[in-house]
């Protein structure tokens, strides 16, 4: 099966090794017997809802994010329609913030976002930097952990009733206070965790691929076969240990 991926603004949003996430998705799709076709969607390019099974939005520096933010707002209705239609999405760090309703700077200025996730972000004093460990339950009864690294000045507040990606075991998370991290809307996930996220959390890569396959086939997400992941397990173990030892400290 061909999984069609839209990688949004890869020339602008790539600060925390986002290409690692794409590499993992591509390689694992192949190991599962599928093909990942990644299309880069940049400034001025249109998004046709239904064409892409999976969207990826990486993190950028403030300057680069400001350069693409107006264009992203123009695409927001099409992206929302695609997500409503069952496409999967992963947005990391700056991409996560940009897909909320907006970002309020320290000077009070507001950079409008795409409004895909029911949340708002405002700049806080001091960055929240360090290793993070989350507990997630994307499928009822199936609890998993995610190990990553966060580095953000923004404090993200979910709307009442919004679903977080996970619960913070160690680290700061969305705002350093509520104990929640990230956000989920259907098959769309947003998170501050980079590192990059997927190499040491391959279960999440497979979850995203299964959701994308569901969109491609119109059926339910398929059960993907286990791939031997000893090295990823070891990397996860070490990263989780780092989060326990030094996550969430200022």
């Amino acid at each position, binding site marked *: 099966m061909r999984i069609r991926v839209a990688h949004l603004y890869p*020339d*602008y949003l*790539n*600060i*925390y*090794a986002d*290409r*690692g996430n794409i*590499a*993992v998705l591509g*390689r694992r799709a192949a190991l599962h017997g599928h093909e990942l076709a990644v299309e880069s969607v940049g400034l001025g390019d249109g998004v046709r809802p239904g064409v892409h099974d999976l969207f990826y939005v990486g993190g950028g*520096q*403030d*300057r*680069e994010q400001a*350069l693409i933010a107006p264009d992203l707002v123009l695409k927001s209705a099409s992206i929302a329609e695609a997500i409503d239609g069952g496409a999967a999405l992963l947005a990391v760090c700056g991409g996560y913030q940009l897909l909320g309703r907006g970002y309020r700077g320290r000077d009070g200025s507001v950079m409008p976002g795409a409004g895909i996730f029911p949340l708002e972000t405002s700049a806080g004093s001091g*960055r929240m*930097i*360090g*290793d993070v460990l989350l507990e997630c339950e994307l499928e009822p009864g199936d609890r998993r952990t995610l190990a990553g*690294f966060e*580095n953000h000045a923004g404090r993200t507040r979910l709307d009442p009733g919004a679903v977080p990606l996970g619960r913070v075991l160690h680290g700061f998370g969305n705002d350093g206070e509520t104990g929640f991290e990230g956000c989920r809307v259907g098959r769309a996930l947003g998170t501050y965790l*980079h*590192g*990059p996220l997927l*190499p*040491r959390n391959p279960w999440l890569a497979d979850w995203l691929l299964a959701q994308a396959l569901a969109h491609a086939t119109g059926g339910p997400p398929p059960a993907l076969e286990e791939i031997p992941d000893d*090295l*990823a397990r*070891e*990397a996860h*173990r*070490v*990263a989780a240990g*780092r989060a326990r030892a*030094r996550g969430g400290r200022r």
Partner: protein
Amino acid sequence: MPGKLLWKLDPEAVDALAARLARGVALHSATNGKTTTAAMAAHVLGKRERLAWNRAGANLLSGIASALLTADGATMGLFEVDEAALPEAITRTRPSVVSVGNLFRDQLDRYGELELVAERWREAVRALPGETSLVLNADDPVVADLGEGRASVLRYGIDDRRHAHQSLQHAADSKYCLRCGAPYVYAAAYVGHLGDYRCDACGHARPSLDVTAREIELAGLRSSRFLLHTPAGEIPVELALPGLYNVYNATAAASLCLALGAAPAEIAAGLAGFHAAFGRFERIPVGSKTIVMLLVKNPAGANEVLRTLETGVPNTLVIALNDAIADGQDVSWIWDVDFEPLLPRARQVVASGDRAAELGLRLLYGGLPPDRLEVVADLESALDRGLALTEAGDSLVVLPTYTAMLALRGILTSRGIVEHYWEGAP
């Protein structure tokens, strides 16, 4: 460490000690090449001046304090300065020359975003008196921009299209016009985003060069040579160091020395006699084999190191990734390094260090066949494994991050292979 103590007890003592230097102070900052560039300049200037110089790479204010305290009778100060410490170093040492080399993404968990560092530099330069000379790498848009509107600026760069990339590398940083935000068009991209850039939308472009490196010949991992065109005449440069990044370092050092009044012949002689700064590039004989150790610490620097390896024979490599504060606790930068061209040529790769598994994943996803990867977290075991895999007469290439380099050097020292050398925290 008396400098640390002095810095804690009486920071203003740094101001007083610096003010005693009759021939003034020169500062050099950059993301990559600080230690090497300062050491090259010291090699040239040390023949005519008594230098207070932080040779050990301790480039925070405490390190400068140490160098000032221990340099009895010094006539001139020459200091490499951490990017974030440059504003305070300028305030305290009141330099006559400030040299800035490059700005790359580096340990974002420590330094923050590039724009943050750039803004600090701009503020520091704005506070400089008009007579202070700037020595700037014109090939870096952010660095070149520091010279806008200033009276005394020496701008340097490379002009040799044979060594340019076809396109910007993945880790290229300052890709968008400082004035209008449109993408720069590169007539030549040499190292990361360093090169001959121009914005077609508004016309902002690399300023004209005062010091230009041309006719560059790179001899693999061994050496390089090039011709420097300067306002004082041509300087032929022979370097016992590899890679285009060291051409930038030597051009920066030569420009800094010119700004301080050195003559072309002095510069040529000083650079020709220069050998690598500690841990940055070392050849260490171990019996019939040679360890070639090159420090890697961020995407742009690592990419240039890998580029010098591509021209050599297929190698056995030990790559060591630590994640202490001095290495950067965030290891995501390894995904921005272009390992891919190297991997098909590598005979065997040993991934090591505290984050060995993470590094192993990076290499596997980059296309290294699993049977050519060994993951050995312990540095000493990895070094021995690498040596065992290396045939007599061959070289083992070792690419460590900063604290892994210190640890590996410590292992070699305890075996009596290299001499002890103290280096402060970077």
